[in-house]
């Protein structure tokens, strides 16, 4: 999967250039020092003398080591050094330009917001990263659309950060880690949803390497990366289940959620399972007034990468028909090792209308892009 493409864009694809919305583009700071211009002295000192404090047995690394160059395309590490995803010129040269990306939705992982136990530090880092995104990435490259980073376990502070950032209309969504301390439907997180609804911004759930300190599979901790990667899907399922059964979409009918990098072929099945058990246990959740699959169908969008690989093309088509062609949005996951090239992501032919929806129209409608 780490082969370099010599000629990334075939001539026949150039007509489609600059029309794709990529809903999962990762950027990261070269080091914490990159964020110093936006960190108060008190927190710069904290970085130097205390550092990160995480819900994980190892520090500054993933407890389930990634495949292939720490989970990155080997060719995405800048020649001048630093981690993959820290160089705007390389992102432009390697992905945005040759792959015809009109807009890239930024998912700024890294620098430890999600796993940080010190919530005041997480808050300071969030503000710094949000400012850094604007000045270092979005100002020089307006194709990039940032997401607001928040210290999600402290809803009050998260709301303040959402309100501060939402004043800048370049922020198109709010990034939340599905690996929270508690399932995200619970009331402690509702102020964030109220703020998102007020601001008219979708929430993007993207799996983080470390999170709330629960065994990622729900059935014990995985041993291998193959197992850990499967939890991206099951964790996303658990979050959507929680949001629906806690009544979040009843309480916040304008709330929109994007499930990024969690897979999507399981989504129809999840709706069916929820409907089945809801029909028997409605007395437990009287606040859930409609079949759960209806909330799934009307409030959730899914990104494509990593796309499950069906045995027959017709199977993938069945699943997307059930899911809804208006719910699926292309994502590449650049610069990660399992990056999906927009030309090869779908192993089946799409009609022009299907292609239009998945590669740009759905995202443009959702995010209000031109």
């Amino acid at each position, binding site marked *: 999967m780490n082969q370099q493409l010599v000629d990334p864009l075939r001539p026949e694809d150039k007509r489609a250039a600059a029309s794709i919305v990529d809903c999962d583009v990762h950027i990261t700071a070269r080091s914490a020092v990159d964020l110093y211009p936006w960190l108060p002295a008190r927190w710069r000192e904290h970085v130097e003398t205390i550092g990160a404090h995480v819900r994980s047995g190892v520090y500054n690394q993933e407890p389930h080591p990634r*495949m292939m160059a720490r989970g990155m395309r080997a060719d995405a590490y800048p020649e001048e050094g630093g981690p993959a995803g820290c160089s705007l010129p390389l992102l432009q040269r390697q992905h945005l330009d040759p792959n015809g990306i009109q807009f890239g939705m930024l998912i700024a992982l890294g620098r430890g917001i999600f796993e940080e136990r010190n919530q005041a530090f997480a808050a300071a880092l969030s503000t710094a990263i949000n400012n850094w995104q604007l000045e270092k990435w979005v100002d020089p490259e307006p194709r990039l659309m940032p997401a607001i980073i928040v210290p999600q376990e402290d809803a009050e502070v998260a709301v303040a950060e959402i309100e501060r950032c939402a004043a800048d209309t370049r922020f198109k969504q709010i990034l939340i880690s*599905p*690996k929270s*301390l*508690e*399932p995200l*439907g619970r009331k402690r997180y509702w102020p964030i949803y109220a703020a998102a609804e007020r601001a008219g911004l979708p929430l993007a759930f993207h799996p983080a390497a470390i*999170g*709330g300190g*629960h*065994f*990622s*599979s*729900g*059935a*014990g*901790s*995985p*041993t*291998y*990366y*193959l*197992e850990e*990667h*499967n*939890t991206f*899907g*099951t964790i996303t*399922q*658990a979050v959507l*289940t*929680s949001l629906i*059964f*806690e009544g979040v979409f009843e309480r916040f009918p304008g709330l929109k959620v994007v499930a990024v990098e969690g*897979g999507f*072929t*399981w989504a129809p*099945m999840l709706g*069916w*399972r*929820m409907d*089945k*058990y*809801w029909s*028997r*246990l409605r*007395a*437990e*959740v009287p606040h859930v007034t409609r079949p759960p699959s209806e909330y799934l169908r009307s409030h959730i969008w899914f990104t494509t990468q990593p*796309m*499950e*690989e*069906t*045995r*027959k093309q017709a*199977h993938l088509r*069945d699943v997307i028909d*059930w899911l809804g062609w208006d719910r699926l949005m292309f994502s590449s996951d650049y610069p990660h*090792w*399992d990056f999906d090239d927009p030309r090869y992501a779908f192993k089946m032919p799409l009609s022009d209308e299907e292609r239009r929806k998945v590669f740009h129209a759905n995202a443009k409608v959702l995010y209000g892009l031109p």
Partner: protein
Amino acid sequence: MKIPFKGAVDCDLHLSAPRMSALLPYMDEYWSDQFSNRHIDRFAFTMSSDNPILPLQWRPDWKAGADEPGSELDRLRSRALDQFGSSIGIVNVIHGAIALYHGDMAAAILRAVNDWTADKVLSQESRLRGSILVSLQDPALAVAEIERLAGNPGFVQVLLPVIGELTIGRRIYWPVFEAASRAGLPICLHAGSLNRHAPTGVGWPSYYVEDYVSQSAGFEASLVSLLAEGVFQKFPDLTFVLAESGVTWMPSFQWRQDKMWLGVRTELPWIDRMPREIIRERVRLTLQPFDAPPDAAIVERLLDHLGSDEMLLFSTDYPHWHFDGDDVVPDGFPTDLLRKIAIDNPHATYGRLRQGGEATKSLEVTA
């Protein structure tokens, strides 16, 4: 729809766990004293994930008469075995002793449950077969219990909860798999959680309904663990039966494993084939609760997605409430597939049924 012939093997039905007072005769003096003196014998050992008062745990018309003493087995006979024309039923007694941290105490109770099952169930009804209950708290004790009962042909599998303490494929559990494999017994992973940690990767859900929905994630985690740890290669004769797992998550799970394995197979060189091939050969799922919508066209597509007519095993999940009347089979199942899942697949899965089974030969189409 109804099952249109007799002779099915019902691969998952339930009897309530016996009261502790009924188990004391099967215990030695030490444990009998312990349970009496500490009033442990006054507890029901009900699994939190098997809460009997929930509406889906007892079908309303099957709940009638549930309080009459001594007749639960009679009701199971008439309502499940006779009613669906089943020639064999595999009874899974769900017992909370598996959630105890005290491995010796758990083993003492589960030994008694197994002996009670042999004595009060299997020897009372020739159509019934049982599952060997073990705790994984001390795998050596689980091995001893499997070996103790391996000679009793009435026990046809080893029963474990799908969500335990560690992922199920870990090497610490391999002696249990080895013992089951030696005895020719499949491992049945049944829906349920020990609740020793949050049953989802994101913490503790508020509601039972979430726990039920998220069981499929527990089954995914267990299967990918068995795959990744190499259990299927290490124990080539061992079959895993997933009971009350639901079915619709399985195609997507296979697609995901195939895709991921192609990317990460250097991590797992012992996985020598596409995961779906291994899963289809070695993993079986009980029919109920079937989690597709009541739409024959969708069911037909899902069966095509599943890609195998050998993976499903007929079950009623009696007395749980998943269907009404006699409509135990979802619309959309062709009759020849039904015959596979109700007769051929169970007999292929449970080697011990082939040793006994004169009752299985009387097949007649009734509808």
